[in-house]
């Protein structure tokens, strides 16, 4: 059983979390979300629209202790899966398609843990993370971006992507 695990907050229910659910839907078996006590009461209903996989929400009031917060999903997986794996992402972290595609192979290997490198995307402040993340990840995959293709976002807004010399540029129609 491959679990997509996160510690997260209520403010992400309508912003980042749908992106996570859509992106990983075809690659994992279950989502395990640890709510810090700020999730809305209808969070499951709202989130379920974005995935076909089960969503488990575990609530632990945030008390400034990251380990205890994370051990909630570790304990859940330990108690519910005989051979449980966790892919852990923070709210503002997203697995690459390469990582998602390799999950099944990796979890059948000899190792019981894998380290993955971080690629940072730094954005100016006035472009808030939410629309930017939507913009980037609704394009579905960076492989198109790297090829220098032109895509359109679902909102009809034209977006040109250019990837040169390790720099990703997004040109957005005003």
């Amino acid at each position, binding site marked *: 059983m491959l679990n997509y695990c996160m510690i997260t907050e209520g403010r992400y229910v309508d912003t980042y979390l749908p992106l996570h659910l859509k992106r990983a839907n075809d690659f994992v078996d279950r989502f395990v979300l640890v709510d810090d006590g700020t999730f809305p009461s209808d969070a499951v209903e709202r989130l379920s629209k974005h995935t076909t996989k089960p969503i488990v929400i575990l609530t632990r009031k945030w008390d*400034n202790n*990251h*380990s*205890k917060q*994370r*051990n909630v999903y*570790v304990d859940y997986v*330990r108690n519910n*899966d005989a*051979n*449980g*794996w*966790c*892919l*852990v*992402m*923070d709210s*503002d*972290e*997203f*697995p*690459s398609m*390469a*990582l998602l595609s*390799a*999950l099944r192979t*990796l979890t059948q*290997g*000899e*190792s*019981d*843990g*894998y*380290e*993955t*490198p*971080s*690629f*940072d*995307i*730094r*954005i*100016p*402040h006035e*472009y*808030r*993370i939410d629309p*930017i*993340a939507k913009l980037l990840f609704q394009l579905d995959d*960076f492989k198109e971006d790297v090829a220098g293709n032109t895509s359109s976002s679902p909102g009809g807004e034209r977006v040109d992507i250019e*990837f040169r010399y*390790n*720099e*990703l*540029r*997004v*040109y*957005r*129609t*005003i």
Partner: protein
Amino acid sequence: MTSSLGITNYVFTEQYDFVKLNLFKVTQNTHYEGDVHEALVGQTKITRTRYPYYHVKDMIEVHRDGSRNYVEGGSGVNLREKNPHWVELLSVLGGSMNWHEFRDFYSTPLLIWLWNHVGDMGNPWSSETYDMYLWLLSKFIIPFRYEGTPHKLEVPNRPEIEDLYRKYLFREPDEPGLLSWSSAWYRLPITKIIEGFVNSVEYKMRKPTGRYVVWY
């Protein structure tokens, strides 16, 4: 059409030196330890992969995270009492305060603390002191501006400013220009920043013809 496009720049940085143990099998020994900087323990065979994850960072979020690390852990890797400024901050905050309380906290003693320490350089907590200043500046009215010369690492948006210089002026930034645009970066939208470059005498004199297309 090129002329109808607005530019949004994203610096896409590979950080092969920073990895996370974020895919693991849950065994009887698997658990996290530590409070601010938690670590996963209990795994017996760990392999580093080449498959990345993406971390989307808003610059203000970077400063916020630096501030949070300062407040919760004394900056650095849980420096706490080893950082005398943190001990002082704790006193200002009334002996204890968690991040959720701090982010709405605004007081004269805090401003005085910031005034005294914003220019701190050369210590493991210096960079995050500057993060604190920039984050508070984005959130509250701060009745002073830090006009000192920050350590190189303390210009967190240096890559973005250098990129603008290379793109529009075809050179590396001079230090006064870097600091000036670094400050403006937090006050103005990116379109205004680019306008500033494009309208400069230097840009107009050096604008190439035929060889480059400048998108803005």
